[in-house]
């Protein structure tokens, strides 16, 4: 592991580091460089439907942001500033009318639309905002297990419970080998495939049970339907969905809607755990107070770009902040309330 000297290298890649920021393998877990997103649209103030001209509306320009191993980076920006758009781009969701330029690096590799798509559920996982992101007709346990064939299942199982599952996994591969040597017929192969999927499913079920145990979800929660979950349960279930796929980076878009600061901090403790285990978290929020209390670094999103990406510690003193908008944010915080008494809502 290569750790940079943070005292000396306070600033590189346009950003400042926090103590928790690590450069595993000598690079960032995820790095976005000069991202531009604009949409082709019809003029909204055209006099009639027929003579409306096509115009380009630029939503994100020259955006750079990096996520290191071991840290939570919060993106703070006003509503409609393009935060969800950024998350979607990282997941490889592009609208047909969007023009996207720039580069995205994941764990040292340069990505394109196709490779970003491949990372869905295999490296980058999304923690969505609410229980509406779960299929209403499928039991929670099954949904957490998911319907994808993950090749990282074994690695992940090891991580959750080193002894138990890895033993299982090795015994499974042994029996597969034995089967391989004496069974060459076609039916043998389909049987083998069927058995493999069955075992694969059993493993995922086991992993899901482990995750539920770790996040204090009762085992009977698995057989509930999404509409039966309480708010807190739903959030933990959604997190389990992401962890199930053993990601390196978690992107969380407003994961604590409607929670006050104290409850939100509790909810985000699980993200802290994930980051401490070496993962990276990109936390999207419009709540600067929340960002400052749970994140390691904060990226200030303003006017379509990240104007400043800095350690939370630097918010202790406005002189450590370089951009005027970040300074304005500092002044808007409740403990410095001589500018804007509304506190955390300053952005909106």
């Amino acid at each position, binding site marked *: 592991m290569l750790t940079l000297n943070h005292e000396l290298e306070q600033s590189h890649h346009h950003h400042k580091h926090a103590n928790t920021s690590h450069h595993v393998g000598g690079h960032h877990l995820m790095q976005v460089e000069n991202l531009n997103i604009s949409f082709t649209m019809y003029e909204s103030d055209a006099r009639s439907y027929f003579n409306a001209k096509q115009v380009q509306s630029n939503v994100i320009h020259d955006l750079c942001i990096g996520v290191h191993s071991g840290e939570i980076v919060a993106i703070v920006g006003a509503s409609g500033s393009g935060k969800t758009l950024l998350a979607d781009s990282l997941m490889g969701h592009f609208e047909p009318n969007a023009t996207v330029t720039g580069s995205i690096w994941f764990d040292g590799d340069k990505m394109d639309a196709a490779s970003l798509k491949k990372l869905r*559920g295999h490296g980058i996982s*999304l923690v969505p905002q609410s229980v509406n992101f*779960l*299929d209403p007709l499928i039991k929670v346990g099954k949904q957490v297990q998911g*319907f*994808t064939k993950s090749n990282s299942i074994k690695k992940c199982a090891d991580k959750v419970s080193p002894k138990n599952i890895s033993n299982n996994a090795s015994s499974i591969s042994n029996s597969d080998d034995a089967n391989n040597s004496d069974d060459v017929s076609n039916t043998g192969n389909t049987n083998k495939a069927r058995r493999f999927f069955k075992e694969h499913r059993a493993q995922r079920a086991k992993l899901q049970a482990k995750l539920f145990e770790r996040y204090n979800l009762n085992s009977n929660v698995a057989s509930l*339907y999404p509409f039966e979950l309480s708010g807190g349960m739903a959030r933990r279930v959604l997190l389990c969905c992401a962890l199930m796929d053993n990601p390196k980076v978690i992107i969380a878009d407003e994961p604590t809607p409607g929670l006050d600061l104290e409850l939100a901090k509790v909810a985000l403790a699980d993200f802290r755990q994930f980051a401490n285990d070496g993962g990276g978290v990109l936390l999207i929020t419009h709540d600067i107070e929340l960002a400052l209390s749970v994140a390691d670094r904060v990226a200030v999103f303003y006017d379509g770009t990240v104007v400043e990406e800095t350690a939370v510690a630097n918010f202790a003193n406005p002189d450590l902040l370089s951009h005027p908008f970040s300074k304005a944010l500092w002044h808007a915080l409740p403990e410095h309330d001589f500018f804007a008494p509304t506190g955390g809502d300053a952005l909106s």
Partner: protein
Amino acid sequence: MLRYTLQQLLKFFLLLFAVSVVAFVLVSVSPIDPVQANVGQTAWLNMSEAKRAQLSEYWGANTPVWQRFINWLGAVVQGDLGISLRYNAPVASIIAQRFATSAVLMTLAWTFSGVIGFVLGIVAALHKDRLLDRCVKAYCFVLASTPTFWLALVFLIVFSVLLGWFPLGFSQPVGVSSSEITLFDTIHHAILPALTLSVIGVANIALHTREKCIDILQSEYLRFARSRGESIVSQIRHHCLRNIALPAITLQLASISEIFGGSVLVEQVFSYPGLGQAAVTAGLGGDVALLVAIAILSAALVFAGNLIANLLYGVIDPRIRRSGFTSFSDSVKQGGANASHDI
């Protein structure tokens, strides 16, 4: 549960009672003179006055309608549906025979339209706003505005007269003894009328499924499924089908009334001796007993369709199943109200 069953039973019998009253009243105010309609114009003109009086006694033209209704009701309660004056046979046996013929037709049409409509709807949704979707939509809109009997005539001309693929009419080959009729014959005769019925029925279910499927494809939970790396096949298989199936089945069960209505026209065009054709004959001939029995049977079918749809919701949808019986029976109550409304 007991209360719910009793409620539904009560509703069912009230419905049947209302249907039979309406049928009796309609026949009694109809301007058709059953005697003239049934013996034919020439026979009527050559008939003696005494003979006419005797016949109108036979057709019950002189008995007030309420009295006929009470007589009929008394018999029905004892399990006797009466005699069809037109066919000169017990109503029960005519209905049984006609229903067997119609059931083939309607089951085929109902299944075809359901399956084809469902598949077309999903295909269209997957190709939203592209060529395939436009084709499906155009097809549905054109068909939804096509008169059933006209389409039946076109099919008859094209497939039976010009191409000769299917028989011109009837449910069985003419001049063949019933012991020699095979299952193939039965189906061969039912295909064209069933096709007509289902081609019309497809539009409704296809458009509905398409709409629903597009909603689901844009839903947050499908977006999340994609974010977890699920392929499009997996999305359809695990999420779309499950979520569309229930509304589609409900719609299809509720469309029994439409299939039944359509079968009246289609059977007429294809001279297909089913319930629909019998209903037309009974109506035009003032054969109250038969007409009422057919009305009751169709009402019962539609009622059963709606009831099954509501029960299915309770069984399949966890949001209803798990949230206790009270809200379940409430939703069924609403559905029951719809059922009687449809008829």
